[in-house]
């Protein structure tokens, strides 16, 4: 496996792809990488610097932490404040600021908040500590949603009385539609997220090509993968095609992973979801189905959430839509740094702002 991955990190192969991209990308175009891990890979490997002047790369809303809205984080915090509750979640969520606080601040003030690698690990905590009510805070797109869906199923199978899930999960295709219809956002092609597509396949993206004439290429995360994705997009644009293609065939099949999709549908139903910076997008949220109400933290741990507050001057919303670059925000690198993040794009290490801050010499640009 390492040998295979090594091939996708081979500078010589990358160089050939870069040459090909330079050769065929004659017309100016704007490509949006939807996925934060792509933003990281592009920054980490310096790929922005090897693109021809005709290709502009924009970072889209591809980080589930970044797009989590203040009221949702406020809700998680209120739940963590309830006596007897252990809030478990992924490490990514700890530093995200809500309206007034963050999970990391709450932990320092004595709330029982624990980080797990897998949602299944939170079931083990619930079994070990029957006197506590263990809540798993689920964030993430289609890649992560089935892991939580199956954990809910597993909790039900084990009849765990002291475990529930708070779903803040979101789905990607609806957000892409919101972006293509936004007059401020001008995207000529999408670098589509590899691991979301592992689950959902090509079908849910077809409308982009069919209805809006915008091509998309599902792309992996090694440097050669990313360049291959850009190359296939440039090729489609040069040939006047708009299709949904896969540049990450080792991890993505056109039909996706039907077992995973079935798992999502069995535990969750669609609901409206608020995306930071974009607003409410109908049908892009995932709520627990009523038959799993006893595993839904929203019903098991009812709380009153204070009126949310938005942060002044933060342009995360515009960054997420690809309307401005992180450098353009007045707070970037001054009031807002990874040590003291103001907006979520700086908090998450794969957020656009954090990736720009970490991997580029922002001071010189």
């Amino acid at each position, binding site marked *: *496996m390492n040998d*295979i*991955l090594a*091939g*996708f990190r081979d500078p010589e*192969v990358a160089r*050939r*792809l*870069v*040459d*090909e991209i*330079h*050769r065929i990308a004659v017309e100016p175009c704007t490509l949006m990488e*939807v*996925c*934060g*891990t792509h933003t990281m890979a592009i920054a980490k490997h310096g790929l*922005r*610097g*090897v693109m*021809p*002047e005709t*290709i*502009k*790369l924009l970072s889209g809303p*591809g980080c*589930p932490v970044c797009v989590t809205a203040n009221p949702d984080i406020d809700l998680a915090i209120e739940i963590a404040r309830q006596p007897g509750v252990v809030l478990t979640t*992924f490490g990514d969520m700890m530093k995200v600021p809500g309206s007034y606080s963050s999970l990391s601040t709450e932990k320092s003030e004595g709330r029982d908040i624990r980080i797990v*690698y*897998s*949602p*299944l*690990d939170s079931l083990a905590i619930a079994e070990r500590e029957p006197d506590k009510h263990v809540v798993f805070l689920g964030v*993430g*797109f289609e*890649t*992560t949603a*089935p*892991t939580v869906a*199956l954990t809910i199923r*597993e909790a039900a199978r084990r009849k765990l009385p002291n475990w529930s899930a708070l779903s803040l999960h979101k789905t990607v295709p609806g957000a892409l539609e919101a972006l293509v219809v936004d007059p401020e956002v001008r995207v000529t092609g999408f670098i589509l*997220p*590899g*691991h979301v597509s*592992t*689950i959902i396949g090509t079908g849910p993206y077809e409308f982009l090509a069919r209805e809006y004439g915008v091509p998309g290429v599902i792309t992996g995360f090694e440097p*050669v993968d990313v360049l*291959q994705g850009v190359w296939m997009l440039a090729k489609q644009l040069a040939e006047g095609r708009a299709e949904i293609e896969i540049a990450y*065939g*080792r*991890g*993505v*099949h056109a039909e996706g*992973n039907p*077992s*995973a999709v079935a*798992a999502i549908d069995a535990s969750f139903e669609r609901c409206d979801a608020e995306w930071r910076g974009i607003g409410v997008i109908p049908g892009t949220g995932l709520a627990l189905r009523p038959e799993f109400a006893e595993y839904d933290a929203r019903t098991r741990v009812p709380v009153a959430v204070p009126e949310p507050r938005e942060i002044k001057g933060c342009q995360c919303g515009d960054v997420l839509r690809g309307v401005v670059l992180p*450098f353009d925000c007045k707070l970037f690198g001054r009031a807002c740094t990874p040590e003291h993040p103001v907006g979520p794009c700086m908090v998450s290490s794969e957020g656009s702002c954090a990736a720009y801050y970490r991997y*580029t010499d922002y001071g010189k*640009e």
Partner: protein
Amino acid sequence: MCLAIPARIVSEPNEIEMAEVDILGVKRHVSLMMTPDAKLGDHVLVHAGFAIQVVDEEFAAESLEMLNSMGIKHADELAAELDGSDETAGVPAS
């Protein structure tokens, strides 16, 4: 948005579909609930403690072969341009 890394399945799944995987020698139990076709010895993509797909190793080898052969026919015509593109390589596009 989502880290998923290749890992090799090194044990038969137990009664709750958990199997041990190996990531460069590090071992952990992950759930195979989403990959019912995964077999001992397969590589799977692991995300948050779940295998989310069996890695298509044949496809990976083929795409590398394709990429390795690419551009060769243009090599001569590109030779002259190469230095030029190297210069742009150092300049941020943004």
